[in-house]
């Protein structure tokens, strides 16, 4: 089959994948409406929604990509060779993280959409089907993959890059994208083997699955750490390597610094040390070989994924049929944790607040005086990540909703369960921060006091998000779709939630300037008022 024909057919399958990922039909959701015109509208809205989400990811790449090059815009920064090495390395880490993270969300729906089912009965050879499925997978990432190269080249040439450096950068970014896809496919494969083959009824096994999932997604979090500290990382390279050539010799062996160093050399063509240049070239060639191997692995695995070939069914010896029902909200929480323990896309979001806390804790340990502004800043950071959880938790209800909606489940029970789970995640973040503070010997009273009070505002914000979402999706059958494909909807839900989180902080700051002795009381009163109001709203939900 000609490439053009395969590409055209992959477009048809891609259309089906986006539709499925938005409305989760094969996962048991129902269509909100039907009728020829409505179906057309739904198909279009699915395509638009996916496109918007791709654009948002592209914007993220653009923004983060530009940020890591900021130190180079300062004329006094020196040495420029090492700074550009840091910038390029950080950019590659950003691309790795964003594409791998996006892939975690999307590859799951790619697999569950069973794209291959549409093609299997057609008179196509296995090879043709494999090619079409692979091209369909590439279509999911087309904009971000292209944007990563485009954004880099624009920013790189703006800060004075060379043609040779640009060419090496393209190779480096393509290799990074392959690494990101490898990571994401590995996670999807792991997820599938867990779901299809892994049973396990005990809480310990559920915990172990979380630990496994954590290790799979750890590389993306390391990249996330690099993003969060990109500025510091770039500066650290510059100061560290300036004095210690031996560190640089070690660093150029590690991805993404080997690429970073080579681009830096190609930009200024100034040789610091021939041995370092040699090591950089050698390690780059090695990474390119790994990338080539990964590319072959990715193409082979995606084709198998599409064919649903990654199935490892293991039967366990069943001793009894005993079940232990809980009260409804606890039953929902347990179900959510079990589903998340087998799905990296859900598990990663549970782990995100904890990772964010670690990052904040590192920043926090370098702050000697934790006053009001620092405390509020830290809490804003944790809140933002916590507020991503409710839509994710609710999207779990999209699975099998055509069945689960026939159960006598009340909206308020659902909202309460998910509020509790999200709020507990926030509290865990606070506890981690406290431990770091004790370890670092910092006065943590501000953050702890404000954080504890702020829990009420967090719970209120979560309840608001969930109330909006359940009102919107309850009758549609929770076809919330995955985060990536419904990013635009999630952003709209996030805004009012974030406003609720911010209001007590604003009130506290304003009161601080008007009547200093009352600012804590004002903070508490506002947070409690929000919590009471939202509790009253939720209690009325049937």
């Amino acid at each position, binding site marked *: 089959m000609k490439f053009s024909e395969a590409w055209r057919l992959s477009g048809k399958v891609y259309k089906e994948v986006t539709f499925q990922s938005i409305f989760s039909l094969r996962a048991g959701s129902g269509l909100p409406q039907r009728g020829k015109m409505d179906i057309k509208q739904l198909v279009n809205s699915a395509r638009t929604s996916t496109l918007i989400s791709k654009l948002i990811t592209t914007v993220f790449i653009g923004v983060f990509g530009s940020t890591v090059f900021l130190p180079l815009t300062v004329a006094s920064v020196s040495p420029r060779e090492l700074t550009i090495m840091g910038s390029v390395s950080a950019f590659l880490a950003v691309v790795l993280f964003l594409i791998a993270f996006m892939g975690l969300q999307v590859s799951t729906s790619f697999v569950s959409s069973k794209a291959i089912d549409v093609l299997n009965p057609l008179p196509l050879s296995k090879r043709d089907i494999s090619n079409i499925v692979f091209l369909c997978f590439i279509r999911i990432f087309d904009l971000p993959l292209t944007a990563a190269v485009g954004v880099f080249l624009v920013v790189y040439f703006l800060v004075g890059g060379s043609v040779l450096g640009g060419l090496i950068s393209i190779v480096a970014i393509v290799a990074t994208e392959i690494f990101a896809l490898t990571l994401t496919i590995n996670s999807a494969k792991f997820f599938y083997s867990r779901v299809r083959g892994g049973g396990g009824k005990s809480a310990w096994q559920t915990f172990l699955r979380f630990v496994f999932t954590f290790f799979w997604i750890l590389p993306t979090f390391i990249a996330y750490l690099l993003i969060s500290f990109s500025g510091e990382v770039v500066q650290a390279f510059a100061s560290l390597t300036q004095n210690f050539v031996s560190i640089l010799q070690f660093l150029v062996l590690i991805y993404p610094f080997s690429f970073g160093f080579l681009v830096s050399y190609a930009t200024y063509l100034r040789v610091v040390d021939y041995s370092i240049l040699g090591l950089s070239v050698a390690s780059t060639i090695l990474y390119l070989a790994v990338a080539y191997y990964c590319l072959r692995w990715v193409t082979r695995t995606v084709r198998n994924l599409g064919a649903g070939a990654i199935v490892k069914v293991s039967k366990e010896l069943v001793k009894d049929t005993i079940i232990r029902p809980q009260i*409804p909200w606890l039953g929902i929480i347990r179900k959510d944790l079990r589903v998340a323990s087998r799905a990296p896309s859900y598990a990663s979001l549970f782990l995100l607040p904890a990772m964010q806390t670690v990052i904040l804790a590192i920043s926090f340990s370098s702050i000697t005086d934790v006053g009001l502004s620092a405390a509020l800043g830290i809490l804003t950071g944790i809140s933002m990540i916590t507020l991503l959880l409710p839509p994710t938790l609710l999207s779990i209800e999209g699975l*099998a909703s055509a069945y689960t909606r*026939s*159960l006598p489940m009340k909206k308020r029970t659902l909202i309460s369960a998910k509020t509790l789970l999200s709020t507990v995640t926030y509290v865990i973040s606070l506890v981690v921060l406290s431990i770091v503070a004790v370890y670092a010997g910092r006065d943590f009273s501000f953050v702890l006091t404000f954080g504890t009070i702020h829990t009420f505002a967090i719970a209120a914000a979560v309840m608001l998000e969930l109330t909006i979402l359940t009102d919107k999706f309850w*009758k549609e059958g929770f076809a919330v779709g995955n985060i990536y494909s419904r990013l635009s909807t999630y952003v709209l839900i996030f805004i009012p939630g974030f406003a609720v989180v911010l209001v007590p902080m604003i009130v506290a700051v304003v009161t601080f300037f008007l009547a200093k002795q009352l600012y804590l009381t004002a903070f508490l009163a506002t947070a409690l008022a929000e919590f009471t109001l939202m509790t009253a709203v939720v209690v009325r939900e049937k």
Partner: protein
Amino acid sequence: MENSAVRVEGLTVSYGPFVAVDDISFTVRNGEIYGLLGPNGAGKTSTIKVLVGVLDPRSGKVEIFNTPITDEAAAKSQIGYVPEEVVLLDSLTPREFFEFVASIRKLEPSVVNPRLERFSSAFELKQYFDTPIAALSMGNKQKVAIVAALMHEPKLLVLDEPLVGLDARSSKILKELITFHAKKGGAVIFSTHIMEVAEKLCTKVGIINKGKIVREGTVDELRRLVKSAEGSLEDIFLKVTEQEAGMQDVIRALEEE
């Protein structure tokens, strides 16, 4: 009506401009097995989805044991439902799935566990208790849905094509369970395309076509209505759904090719 299990009045379901169910009314009494029959796209599943609270009607009134379906939790707690397309929480094992359903239905372990043991043995599901649902065959998934529908011993069973994918043994057991449930005073709404099954099992049949109930009654009453004393339910069905007329021509045309 005191002993009515289900009362449907003027039910209309639409999807955008498309009207799937058009102003239908029917009643199912305790002890009745009501067969809802109709060609593909007639509106059976849409009707059933409204009865179990999965779908909102455009208009009309539905009561389950005198509880309006708008009082969702109260109405749903009396229903055991097996959907047409069995899509369950695939990443869970049957044990985890039953635990979730039992939690939502507030079932006591001492009550639910003996039932679960009984039903799992009957449907030979025990060996798959800790296997993820995603890895089960269609028939075993169907069994999981059936056991989940039975475990709270509901007064009303709503079964949308429940025999699809079941092996002969499980099919026989389910049919016996349905009959026993009705004998005990429970009610069953049952949709199927297998006319022989409907004929043997149902105490009352409603034939739905193009969103309307075109005939209703016992199989004997329907025979009298269509003046076909010898005809099977299939013949009656084809007659009242106006599919009989051109069918011979279609078959002949296919054979000629």
